[in-house]
């Protein structure tokens, strides 16, 4: 049923709250796990500057060790959890708008299930921050399991 499971992560607690769920399903089905970090170009734009977006476009990611480190930490967390259970974990980093990139990656790699966390924000906070999970749901045709990070 599930041969490839995609776990997108930005390294936050919210994203990592979904990791256990994803890994558990992967173990049950003997699936391959894909850990994906999306370099949010909007975030690069307002936090590092527009020039840095052009730099990434021009293939300059290899000379941006701080960004690589962040991405590696995020996907590494998934990889560690997966390897503890003896699963194959593929780590990937792409750049763009997170929801579009998650969908694009799922399409390209024949992913059968996306497992991701959501902060479950409401009201103004949702309007401001948006929900990557919500947008991914709307964008993709791949099944999505959304794990609500709120503990209640």
């Amino acid at each position, binding site marked *: 049923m599930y041969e490839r499971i995609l776990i997108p992560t930005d390294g936050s607690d919210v994203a990592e709250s979904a990791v256990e769920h994803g890994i558990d399903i992967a173990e049950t089905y003997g699936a391959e796990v894909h850990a994906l970090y999306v370099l949010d170009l909007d975030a690069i734009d*307002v*936090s*590092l500057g*527009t020039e840095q977006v052009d730099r990434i476009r021009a293939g*300059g990611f290899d*000379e941006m060790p701080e960004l690589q480190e962040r991405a590696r930490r995020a996907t590494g967390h998934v990889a560690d959890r997966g390897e503890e259970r003896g699963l194959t974990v593929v780590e990937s980093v*792409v750049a763009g708008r997170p929801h579009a990139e998650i969908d694009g990656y799922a399409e390209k790699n024949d992913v059968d299930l996306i497992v991701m966390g959501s902060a479950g924000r409401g009201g103004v906070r949702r309007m*401001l921050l948006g929900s990557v999970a919500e947008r991914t749901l709307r964008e993709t045709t791949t099944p999505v399991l959304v794990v609500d990070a709120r503990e209640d």
Partner: protein
Amino acid sequence: MIDPASIPAAVGTVVAQVEYTNALDPGFKLVPALTVVAMLALFLGVGWFFRVAAVDDLWVAGRSIGPIENGMAIGANWMSAASYLGVAALVATLGYFGLAYVVGWTTGYFILLIFMAAQFRRFGKYTAPDFVGDRFYSDTARGIAAFTTLAIAFVYAIGQGSGMGLMAEYILGVSFEVGVIVFMSVTIGYVALSGMLGATKNMAIQYTILIVAFLLGMYAVGWSQGWSTVMPYLEFGPETALIVEELDRQFIEPFASGSYYAWVALAFSLIFGTCGLPHVLVRFYTVDNERTARWSTVWGLFFICLLYLGTATYAVFGSILYEDPVQDTETAVTAGEATSFMGMPGADADALVVLTVQLADLPEWLVGLVAAGGVAAALATTAGLFISASSAAAHDIYTNLYKEDATQREQVIVGRVTIVAIGLLVMVIAIDPPALIGELVGMAFAIAACVFFPVFFLGLWWENATQEGAIAGMLTGIVISFGAILNATIPGYTDAIPGDAISPTVATVLPPTSSALIGVPLAFVVIVAVSLVTSDPPEDIKRLVRQCHSPKPMKRSESAEDVAADGGTPADD
């Protein structure tokens, strides 16, 4: 219009006279308005197109940006409403003295080219406070640098808001205040929602629009008045002679509008301010290699000069037309409000470039295009400033100093809130600006020169500069530059202090736009002195600095940090 001289005194006391406000045509203009809308749509369209185009493979070199395109981006980033509108205004109203702005705002790129462009490329980080924080291994230094970046963006952007208001007055026929609010809101929305507007591609387009608009106006005026043909840059000699002989001799008297000291201090501040502006430096971090960094600077300077050398031409053409308009319009001179063009009110002066084309009675679409170029100039620079402010807040302050593990989403929100907040603040101040556009921007330069230039320069070239030295130097710069600005602007906001400055003596020695002549050497002395008495920087920092200015070329893929971290000996050891 009513000529005040022709009204009998008895009537004049009863009938309210039509007061002279400004010479720009009032009223909404369809074609110019459509030009601006089309221009904004183009920026947004290009921004959107490149925004959705994602990066497929991060590890494969994509299309890198060449020196010409980088040069155009430097030009668009650099040339704001202050260059496009303000410099001609200052040359017209201050005469020879105004040339300090032309000299100051071009020469700085030579210093950048020789001492800093390639060295910053080697350092290769992200923001200006990143350099200060990493080079001086201090979060305090990083914090001061981030605060200064915000202050520079704020002061600099006020001048842009002012320019936008004037252009909106002409194009949309609204009041100055409404104009500031409309165009500033558009800019804030653009930058907050798609800061990609500032991407290199768009900046090259913005440069093209602004330079075409500027030159088309200049050539058309020169041609239609029979003053110039193919090289208006060099052909306005007879017109200058006419001004000097018949209109106002002061125009070429070197220090009629300010002392020799003031001229030198201003030019000095502008030159070194150029080398300390965060939104200018960040481009050098990201170019493909050192060679591109250097050639981008050269091209940037060429593109900048295309406009700057034309400002004096505009000032001369505009001044003659202001005294004797071809178009049937009242100016301050014909209305008897001013004795010569040099006494024109601030609103007319700051709109002089557009006014020149209008007074020459050229078609409305052309006047509108020149005004649209002014909007493009203000918009491009404001976008760059807002992004430098948002990165100082989201990257340097929020992520590096406050919350190490901030997620990308949090950075987006902090960045956007900063843009909106600083934008609104700028809008409020720009509605009632404390000085002319050129002067406001001059103040931002004084801050950049006093606070940033010394730490950038010594940080790149002197390995023994310590964190204590850098912090002391930046604080010195802050006290001097902000002190000079507050000294001269606070009396404008309160009646409690009479006169133009809190202390006129201080204002003469430390003018708000020119405090760097004293501030920069003083900051250098403080940094050197404090560095000598504090313990040396760590060895890895020294290696990094040596690598940044090493004469040995580096490979594209290397950063100075990599080479230095390998423990390898830098080439000049």
